[in-house]
């Protein structure tokens, strides 16, 4: 999947995460601000990285503002932001289902 323009998904509510994806020349960078950074910062980044990899996104700058989201929420917000940033409207649920759990 190709990031064509910046896009984001998620809210600032407690237990949610805002994921913003911006185009990059190469590589994945993640700037994370989390209310549980010390305990879960690494795990949150790993979840985002895994979802991006599964979507075959190799060049992107990620800005994430986390308010204690669960892993399923992190994945869902990353996927939604990626589809928006790639201008893809038809979600490939079967393909997503094959790796999301």
């Amino acid at each position, binding site marked *: 999947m190709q990031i064509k323009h910046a896009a*984001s998904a998620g809210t600032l509510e407690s237990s949610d995460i805002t994921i*913003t994806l911006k185009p990059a020349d190469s590589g994945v960078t993640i700037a994370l*601000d989390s209310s549980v950074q010390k305990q879960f910062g690494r795990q949150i980044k790993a979840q985002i990285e895994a979802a991006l990899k599964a979507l075959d996104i190799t060049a992107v700058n990620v800005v994430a503002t986390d308010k204690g989201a669960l892993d399923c929420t992190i994945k869902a917000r990353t996927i939604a932001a990626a589809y928006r940033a790639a201008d893809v409207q038809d979600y490939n649920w079967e393909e997503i289902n094959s790796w999301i759990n």
Partner: protein
Amino acid sequence: MAELRRIWLTINREEATAWAALLTKSQLAVDHQVDVTFGMFEGETLLATASLYGQIIKCVAVDPAAQSENLLAPLIQAAFDQLRADGVEHAFIYTKPSTQTFFSSLGFTPLAASQDVVLLERGYPDLDDYLQFLRQKKRPGTAAAIVMNANPFTRGHHYLVTQAASQFDTVYVFVLSAEHSQFSAADRLAMVKLGTQDLPNVVVLPTRDYMVSSATFPSYFLKDRADLAVAKQQAQVDAALFVQKIAPTLAITTRFVGEEPLSPVTAVYNDALAAAFAGSLQLQVIPRLQSDGAPISATAVRQALANSDQGTLEKLLLPQINRYIKEHSSHAN
């Protein structure tokens, strides 16, 4: 559980009074220049509020008795949802340095700070995107900058640019992108390009939101009504942003401004620039070019346009700009 509601300041008098009281209690000015206002209510009691004016989040206050209850997040979320409905994914906020951390934890990044005020942004396109755009336009050698509204581009502007261009390898002319002027941003950018064609070392660029914009220096667009104390604060932030981010990106060492005998707001701005630049950048103040014993100003041009005073227009405008204005205003009529 507090509930988010929109406050209709012009319609609901009771809530408007509560809103003003909360701002006063929080030592904020009751600023009615807002488009949309949100409140967090416990029953009928207003606990917290935030407003939007264009892309600027302002008048943010939480009742001291209701702090640490996470009332800020839903308010900022509501502001973003409102902007998103208009296709905008980007917002600014002004705050005191002491409350900066609350907004950082909501995804805002600080852009520039003066002693009393911090300007933060969230969303995209952001300052990094703008600096990236500037890097693509960068030329080697010595560089100076001029920021102008050019509403419209006069012989006075041309004189100022010529002065700078004679001293530096490159002059970056930034044209304000805000749409608060008689001429549109696109027209003003086109006129500056047209008017500087004789100067090959001039690069004309838009300011987007990062120089003298509704975000960095809103008072500029209120000129005769602006509170000079407020204008000074904003000018300091605007100047800090230029010194810290814009100038280093393009290796700008000097900024040229026209002397300001007429507008107090612009004079305050020039003073703030000089103070912020001290030690890091040069500020060159060029006396205004005169015509018939009076300084040439865009205000005089607009006056002459309103009166269809061709004689004056020919004196104040380059021929190609005069032609441009005629061609483009004929569409409107």
